């Protein structure tokens, strides 16, 4: 780790979701080794440098794997069955997310192109008040 330059906003989970609320998928880029990291974190997981800058992801990538959830947690009960995928963004990072409009395995194929879409945050009284990003086939 090298000494941290103060990054604004800080490279945190909370900042990530504030950007999602603005319709942006943001990562941090390590100024030392060049690695692009999402979710953002205060230390580069490539070289342990703390010298980072914000970069915006284009929001496109490739399907790595997926599942279709039939038995959901309480908060997702009304959505089931729903699909969650892991997508490798073109800039490098992999992210999980719900795939809109997919409930059957034959609607997806590993390796296919995917893109990010945004929806307004659900209204919640309690912590956390984060929005979600979603995926769809590109």
């Amino acid at each position, binding site marked *: 780790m090298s000494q941290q330059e103060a990054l604004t906003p800080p490279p945190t989970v909370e900042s990530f979701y504030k950007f999602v609320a603005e319709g942006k998928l943001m990562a941090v880029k390590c100024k030392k080794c060049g690695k692009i990291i999402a979710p953002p974190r205060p230390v580069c997981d490539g070289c342990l440098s703390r010298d980072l800058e914000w970069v915006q992801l284009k929001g496109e990538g490739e399907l790595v794997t997926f*599942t279709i*959830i039939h038995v959901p947690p*309480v908060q997702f009960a009304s959505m089931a069955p729903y699909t969650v995928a892991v997508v490798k963004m073109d800039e490098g990072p992999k992210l999980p997310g*719900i795939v809109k409009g997919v409930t059957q395995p034959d609607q997806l194929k590993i390796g296919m192109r995917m893109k990010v879409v945004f929806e307004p945050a659900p209204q919640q009284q309690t912590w956390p008040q*984060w929005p979600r990003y979603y995926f769809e086939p590109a």
Partner: protein
Amino acid sequence: MISMSGKPLAAIVSAGLSKFGRREGLYGRELFLEAAGEAFDRCPNLDPRRDIKGVFVGHMGESYEHQGHTGPTISDWLGLTPTQGFRFESACASSSAALRCAVMAIASGLLDIVLVGGVEKMTHRTTPEVTEYLAMASDFPFEQWHGLTFPGLFALMATAHMHKYGTTEEQLAMVAVKNHKNASMNPKAQFQKVITLEDALKSRVIAWPLKLFDCSPITDGASCAILVKPELAKKFTDTPIYIIGSGGATDRLGVYARDDITSLLSAKVASQEAYKMAGVEPKDIDVAEVHDCFTIAEVILYEDLGFCPKGYGGKFIEEGQTHIGGKIPVNTSGGLKAKGHPVGATGVAQVYEIYLQLTGQAGPRQVSGAEIALTHNMGGSGASAFVHIYRRGD
């Protein structure tokens, strides 16, 4: 057989296990006493108050009983106050984390006799509640927040493994069939009935491609073992077993963040550490308990623990290599899948089975001539894992 090159780190001189299943009206502290009572009864030379210097307990979730601070809770209910008590949490590997720290405590010379165990009381809660409490072991802001459950996380691995290696749903179901068969020979197991391949394949989808019979159940239970420094072992039993290897490792918390979603890095790294310490190789293992929280996990673990080549796990179960009588019997107890999975108790419950196997007390599921054994226990979707290797002590 191998040369006995692994120096004993600690000796197990007794072990106990509660009945697994739905244990109505019994809470964690009471279940733990059932397991400890068996361990004490098996070891009449042990005077718990005089001898036990510390209580090392694995316990995953304080939400179940609205009760944390499990170290003193269990120490108190054992009647051992003011012995020192510790709670370890590493999700479903909590009691193996306790075991590894207990091994270090013994090896340090600071404590010479310790009680190690684990406990979870789960069935008094609803399935959605349990699903929520279990999910706390995964990455909240990215996995839980995007609707992933534990079956879902292992389903991500299954989809990728099937795609890359051609593993089939039938092969996964064969793991369930084997483990239910083994459980039918284990009176402490939650499930006592054999199942057919058809039963497994026709069960309802939980998280595609995983079905009900690919998943371990919700279980109440507790486990316990008595660890002593090797030089003291024969004071307590004629048939100690020795821990000769201990390894621990982590992986990225989020499945999404891992380089290879078809592999469990923590199992690879922890087992390599344990094998090296023990001076044994995978082919030397006579019997193993591995973390089959979902059938796909057992298949991947065959590979990452070195029992078979990478990508060959599906074929390995299909060939029957891990059945009792096969090349390397895996989960003779019935595993998490059919013995049951009271999460905090599972790691030391694996130790209990190995204790029975290496002391020749496993009854109809005994692996004859077993001398070297392995346990693998993982937390969550594999973000933590602990591997221990044991040798029969006689």
